[in-house]
């Protein structure tokens, strides 16, 4: 932990998003700190993904102010920046609920595309690249090293030259996170990263996210249904229901909040973990040592 912890990275104030007559998000305010994992939870249709879409420029919020203050000292008003610029300038990276890889391209190419803006600058809008100048070649080598680093970390080295679309589901999830990290973001938004993973893969994911938080000091925003992951790794919980905030705070406190139990945990009993998984969870210490990711 360091002095930066506790400083807000993202402040969301009075965010509302309306589709026709329906408020998908209604007057939502919360903050997410640097070097923390903030989980947004809530029943299906609570508006979690809509919040993400507003943060990452896919929707223009109807009302609200979204301030990103990365450690660099700059301040970005995300609601004023359009589309791709949020990723490019403010450094917000995201993954998608239904994985969106460049399925026909190789795993390595996916990670190279993620470094597009840096490489474009290095290639002087392709001119230096076309001529094969040394400056560009060095930049490309650095990009490859970064990609290799993430491939290694995700246990994807052996698959680097395969098509991304041919990877098994769990690896595709990891590749998507690696791709987001290759943009070197200030904030990482993960939309249900544990969906479709088996308990062991979820465990690996938890460990990975804790590592990323510790190592890069970036803020992670997480939408997740898998409560084992959420309770284990998040520093801060934001609970939504019908587009409105019903509770926020540290996981231990929020999970005992009666409103949350009523709206969320109470109505979705099927979310409860099967006993064998729950047993595993107890066995996992809260702070997991930063071991490298074991390959699948």
């Amino acid at each position: 932990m360091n002095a930066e912890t506790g400083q807000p990275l993202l402040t969301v104030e009075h965010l509302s998003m309306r589709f026709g007559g329906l408020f998908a998000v209604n007057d939502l305010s919360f903050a997410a700190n640097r070097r923390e994992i903030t989980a947004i939870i809530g029943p299906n249709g609570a508006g979690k993904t809509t919040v993400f879409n507003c943060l990452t420029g896919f929707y223009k919020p109807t009302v609200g102010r979204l301030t990103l203050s990365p450690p660099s000292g700059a301040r970005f008003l995300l609601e004023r920046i359009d589309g791709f610029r949020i990723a490019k300038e403010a450094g917000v990276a995201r993954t998608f609920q239904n994985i969106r890889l460049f399925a026909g391209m190789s795993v390595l190419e996916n990670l190279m595309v993620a470094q597009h803006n840096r490489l474009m600058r290095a290639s002087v809008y392709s001119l230096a690249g076309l001529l094969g100048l040394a400056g560009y070649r060095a930049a490309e080598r650095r990009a490859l090293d970064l990609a290799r680093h993430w491939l290694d970390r995700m246990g994807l080295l052996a698959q680097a030259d395969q098509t991304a679309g041919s990877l098994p589901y769990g690896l595709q999830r990891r590749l998507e996170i690696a791709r987001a990290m290759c943009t070197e973001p200030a904030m990482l938004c993960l939309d249900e990263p544990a969906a479709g993973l088996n308990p062991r893969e979820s465990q690996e994911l938890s460990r990975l996210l804790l590592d990323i938080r510790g190592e890069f000091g970036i803020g992670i925003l997480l939408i997740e249904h898998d409560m084992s992951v959420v309770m284990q790794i998040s520093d801060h919980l934001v609970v939504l229901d019908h587009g409105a905030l019903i509770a926020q705070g540290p996981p231990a406190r929020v999970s005992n909040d009666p409103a949350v139990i009523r709206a969320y945990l109470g109505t979705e009993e099927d979310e409860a973990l099967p006993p064998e998984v729950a047993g595993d969870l107890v066995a996992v210490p809260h702070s997991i040592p930063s071991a490298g990711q074991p390959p699948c």
Partner: protein
Amino acid sequence: MRPNLRGMVKDSLAAAIVAALLAVPLLGFHLSGSAQGLTLDYRFGWVAIASLAVFCGRLALSLAGTAVGRSLRRRRQVVLPLSGRPSRIRPAVGWALVAVALLLPWTPLADRNLIDKATLLLIYIMLGWGLNIVVGLAGLLDLGYVAFYAVGAYCYALVSQQFGLSFWLCLPLAGALSASFGVLLGFPVLRLRGDYLAIVTLGFGEIVRVVLLNWQDVTNGPIGISGIARPTFFGLPLLASVPGRTTFHEFFGLPFSTDHRIYFLYYLILALALATNLFTLRIRRLPIGRAWEALREDETACRSLGIDPTKTKLSAFALGAMFAGFAGSFFATRQGFISPESFTFIESAIILAIVVLGGMGSQIGIVLAAVLLVGLPEWFRDLQQYRMLAFGGAMVVIMLWRPRGLLASREPTVRLAERPATLDAAGEVLP
């Protein structure tokens, strides 16, 4: 599966009946014109022949075709296959093709006619390579590519006539003009969905043609522009004699022959086409090229990575247009005459078909498709009437046979295996 003869005959009979229904109105009756108006002739014999042919063809196909059918089904995969390891065959084939192209004029086979046809073929190959940037790499469906070709051709024709600039000065000018037309058109429409882009580009192609037809003062309308300056061999005219100037044959002390020009044009287009190819091969490995392919795969994901979709698409569109402009000015200087007739939609369709049939993004595939679609029919010019019919039929059949194109596997732009690691590549072992 055991061949089921009864089923096949029944199936073929059904096909024959449909064929008869199709043939009766249009083959069975013939409208012949006379001064008084139209009269009807009857040729039901043709209908019978057509349905018989369909019956036999269908039966033969189903008898021979169980194996073909199976391979057809197997090929219909949706995810583009990546070639597993770096292909050694493709570069070899590529170099062999270049060698053949370079040596062709020196082989005993070569005569004016062949070289002339090869020149035409190379124009289409170059156009295919240019359009490949737009359609194959960036995945933007452009149905009006011929418009940029026309812009290039008219630019050269007009500029060289009005200002007397040489081919070599006009070439970049034509490319730049075509590219700016690409930007002009692309800027408003590139944010549209794929199919809307198709119709707008199709419309643009038609608009350019209509303007060329009707803007009499500048384009000379349907009559076209003739007497376009021929290219020079680095300043030496390829003509019998030009007063006050040394011509090519005088300079080299050769007897004059019109063949010189034909051969020179051939090498010129070969150089232009190879330059296009080299450019594409190179830019594919650059960030912009990867971004094009990424956009083709998933635009939303691209935006989430901070890639500007409009600018990226625009660059593909403009570069594709630029190569069409180059090809256009070559076309003008080769023909010495251009008219709007050379720039109809069918040309766009042919170029697009070359790209798609070749296998989207495959440079050698495009050569193959161009040979099949443009080269072969050129040799059957005598069957002029049936040429286009066969051409359209071939498009359908090749698509049914190989929906992903002739050469469909994609070579990744970078391989980890080929890049020496600066880190320890071994993954960590499970505890």
